């Protein structure tokens, strides 16, 4: 309980007396590049292959003369939009971004860089963490949209190249029974997950004590806790919004 209390006090400190807006804007842009742009490659690889695999496996399980082949594409689309793109992408990002944030802040803590900021009278948590949180909440939904698109495209490639579904059936399937609300749901998830990953990882890194070993531990703890929180939040969001 004390850890949860400390986490919320830490969140409160992010919105304490801050610095000039221009400083935050510059930091936000830097973090958006570091967190968002540098994650495009890994997100693209993971989502394309997940889309491809989900297409082939769905087709493998739907061998029935009464189910139209285009249903494969419909399932791939809904799996991507509702679950795979937002949740799996964010779990991958928890590993990449979460560990990076925790180790960066942990190293800054043990090398007294955070102390140096505090001595200057700078709100260190707000200066260091708030731009990361905002950048994650801003870039994660965009990465997830990209992941959903590439996932569906990956399914198309795998389906048509292996011959389990024709191009025409696939294009028909992804447009069949489309519910636009699902796109909204898809974008809400990474917004929440981005907040959780950035704040939990920052918390772990910010309060690191010791040396290199503890920085490694904080990093591992950040990824573990972020993944658990994503799964819990995923369930709660599904209950609340669907």
């Amino acid at each position, binding site marked *: 309980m004390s850890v949860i209390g400390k986490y919320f006090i830490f969140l409160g400190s992010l919105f304490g007396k801050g*610095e000039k807006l221009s400083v935050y804007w510059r930091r936000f842009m830097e973090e958006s590049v570091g967190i968002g742009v540098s994650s495009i490659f890994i997100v693209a690889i993971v989502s394309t292959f997940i889309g491809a695999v989900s297409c082939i496996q769905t087709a493998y399980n739907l061998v029935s003369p009464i189910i139209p082949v285009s249903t494969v594409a419909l399932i791939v689309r809904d799996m991507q939009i509702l679950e795979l793109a937002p949740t799996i992408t964010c779990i991958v990002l928890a590993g990449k971004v979460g560990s990076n944030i925790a180790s960066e802040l942990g190293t800054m803590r043990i090398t007294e860089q955070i102390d140096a900021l505090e001595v200057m009278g700078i709100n260190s948590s707000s200066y260091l963490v708030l731009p990361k949180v905002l950048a994650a909440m801003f870039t994660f939904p965009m990465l997830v949209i990209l992941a959903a698109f590439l996932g569906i495209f990956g399914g198309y490639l795998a389906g048509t190249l292996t011959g389990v579904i024709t191009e025409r059936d696939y294009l028909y399937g992804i447009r069949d029974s489309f519910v636009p609300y699902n796109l909204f749901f898809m974008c809400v998830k990474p917004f929440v997950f981005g907040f959780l990953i950035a704040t939990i990882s920052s918390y772990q890194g910010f309060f690191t004590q010791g040396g290199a070993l503890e920085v490694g531990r904080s990093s591992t703890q950040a990824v573990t806790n972020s993944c658990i929180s994503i799964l819990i939040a995923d369930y709660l969001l599904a209950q609340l919004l669907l």
Partner: protein
Amino acid sequence: MIEIKDIAKAFNGKEVLKGITSTFREGETNLIIGGSGTGKSVLLKTMIGLIKPDRGNVLYSGRDFYNSDKDMRQSIRREMGVLFQGGALFDSQTVEENVRFPLDMLTDISAAEKKERVEFCLQRVGLEGTGKRMPSEISGGMKKRVGIARAIVMNPKYLFCDEPNSGLDPLTSVKIDELIKEITEEYKITTVIITHDMNSVMEIGQNIIFLYQGDKLWEGLNSDITNTKVPELNEFIFANKLLRDAAKENQNK
């Protein structure tokens, strides 16, 4: 001038500082010495506001740091420059950006004025032409110099140095010591240095405090330190065989 009054601090019931009182004078290099684990760093951190003491006051030119409002504390903080043990340079910024950082964050002066001030500070510490290099590309001694440049860029009234010689070769140590002393006298700064380096004590120490197990056992001038009757201090000073032999030789003479 900085006054500390009855500073005490305990961690998990263990007393690390047991009521330290002292005065650090303006324009002089004030040294806090003692062995490892005697509370030197904790005392420094209580003075600069990183660790809140359990009791006691820290007064900066009469202004009580811990009993002031936020604005006053902030204004006192902006009069401080701190050189951390490892330099505490921001890894993601160049040398120039590190030195300019306090100006960017805490002032509204123009870019040209900032550039001029940064160049002056880098020149003052003998690092002209290194502004574009990253902290990972410079030596330990250079990092300390950059740390000093960053500490003085805001024209501080108070300069704190946490073991400025740690990890440096003897020649670089002497240069860093001399630089700190020069800056202290030139700008009439109140400088507080933590060290367990006897060379620094003899070379630049003017007022010296000796801490032992969280207590202040001795306070005095550099010239008196070798003639004390405090056994713990003598043990600390003459731990080095060369100094021990020199002292014996002096006594024989």
